[in-house]
């Protein structure tokens, strides 16, 4: 029914899970035992993290033994996904450092991201610019004036 998972993806994700669990396990080492109740704060996260690590190691071993061929996603799709991640990271960072107003940052972000996804086709760019401005400035107006919600940015 479903395509098989690329063993490299399988191993990479299992490693990510192991790292998260290992960090949690390490962080719980100094938690003192409970004084008013038998269990204390540490055993539940420790047991959870340990179980995750054991099972994730099992998944890695299984992925390493699996030699069957797999279908990989098209390279273009991967590049697009990478662009989404990178531009979103820059967008959130810009808001974190309050570089300018939400409306301006959102408009620039949308122009760049949609532009990247449509390969900056000149015929579509005027529409993209208009859409980005409407979403950026329109949402700033609606959220701050109508819903009276704060937005990130200056």
């Amino acid at each position, binding site marked *: 029914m479903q395509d098989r998972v690329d063993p490299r993806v399988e191993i990479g994700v299992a490693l990510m899970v192991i790292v998260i669990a290992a960090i949690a396990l390490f962080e719980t080492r100094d938690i003192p035992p409970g004084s008013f109740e038998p269990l204390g704060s540490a055993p*539940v996260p420790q047991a*959870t993290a340990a179980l995750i690590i054991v099972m994730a190691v099992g998944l890695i071993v299984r992925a390493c033994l699996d030699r069957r061929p797999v279908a990989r996603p098209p390279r273009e799709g991967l590049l697009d996904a990478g662009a989404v991640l990178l531009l*979103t990271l820059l967008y959130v960072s810009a808001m974190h450092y309050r570089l300018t107003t939400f409306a301006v940052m959102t408009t620039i*972000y949308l122009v760049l991201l949609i532009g990247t*996804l449509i390969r900056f086709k000149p015929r579509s760019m005027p529409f*993209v610019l208009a859409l980005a401005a409407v979403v950026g400035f329109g949402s700033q107006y609606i959220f701050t004036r109508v819903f009276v919600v704060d937005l990130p940015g200056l």
Partner: protein
Amino acid sequence: MEAVLSGLGGGLGLVFAPMAFFFVVLGTVLGIVVGAIPGLTGAMLIALTLPLTYYMLPTDAVVLLIGMYVGSITGGLITATLLRMPGTPSNVMTTFDGYPLARSGKPGRALGLGIAASFAGGIISWVFLLLLAKPLSIWATRFGPFEYFTLIMMAMVLIASVSQGNLVKGLVAGLLGMLVSMPGVDPSAGQPRLTFDWYMLNGGLKLLPVLIGVFAVSQIISDVLDLGRKIERVESQRTGILLPIRDWIKYGANMLRSGLIGTLVGILPGVGASIGSVIAYTTTKNLSKTPEEFGKGSEAGIVASETANNATVGGALIPLIAMGIPGSVIDAILIGALMIHSITPGPALFITNGDVVYAMIAACLVANFVMLAVMVASTGWVAKLAYVPRTYLLPVIIVFCVIGSFGLDNVMFDVWVMLIFGVIGFGLERARYPLGPFVIGFVLAPLMEAKLRTGLMMTGGSITPMFTRPIALSFLIVAIVLLVWPLVGEWRRRRAAAASATA
């Protein structure tokens, strides 16, 4: 029964108040629209809508979200039938027969069957919701901490074992969800844990940014990978959209059976609409006199799939209302919505917030009627939504994800949490870890741990009551069986394979 009916009357009164009714209609329409756009899901819509509900009355908020829930499960049938693209995962089985029937020149008939079946499924499960929720909640008041602990454990194992076929991945996802719910000040001992001496983590990771990240951002990244996919299309037709009475009678038994299956599957904690749809479809095929027609445009197949997936909605609300245990991923989000409004789901909900509970039950009924009306009237237009270019839509949704996460407490930390969990969710999905157990683990872990520690305090550290109290022991046995069964099945399969290889 009298109390239930009078409660329902009160609930209907609340739902038919102008504002609440507007929200039910709005929620159902938005749900249908989002369900009809492949790649967007009801969970995503509801997670993104949560921040807007802070400013609403609790009743308005829950009726809006329930409308979305009902609408999103149904909306997916349009694209499943006309484009062979299930709008939501629960409509996958509908594509097998809906699309071939539509291609054979009967798109209106295919849609009409799906709409009628969706309505029937919604109503059948609603009857069970109305009749079972209160008695179950009364029964659940007998639960002590060990019963609750073992019930949640059973729910976790259940969802892990049925989510996507891989038990270990389901368990890892569930445990990971539990682990990421643990940072913050431990409420039992009052001391911080897993905070890395970082004050932002003292309050723990909030549900909303995690949900938006895992369901919306990760889905957007996945959708971007799939942007180049070509869509096959059958034009919509109005002929046959309204199902004649004789067809309701003809498919009545199928609807009833599939509705019951969907409701039962929905009641099982954490098991969603997709599984209900698969089981009902397979059962109908096995009972059919013409099983060879399934997959080639069988009307019974469409009816079974759509009745069951809609029936899971009412079914899944039963454990949520009665015990505070989510019956599906969307129900886990609904728990978050209730908590935002200081409403704690659980057996006492009928007593503490009876008006909200009956408003939820009434909204479920009204939303089904709204769904029927909207679908019959506007299927042709809704079908066109599938052509909204995703290259324009997905980036705009990311902007709303940012606004939703930031709006929670006006801190950028929540936006970063959303982004990080978007990447984690994307990674998990790429490696086919089910996301349902992750979210349900995240929602249920604090309750599970609190119950365990309360129980241990009561018994001076002994877990013996888990084996001596009948209800707790029953849940424990079911959890163990659910855990061991797939492993035994796998072992038997391998042994059979080895035996046939040597022969």
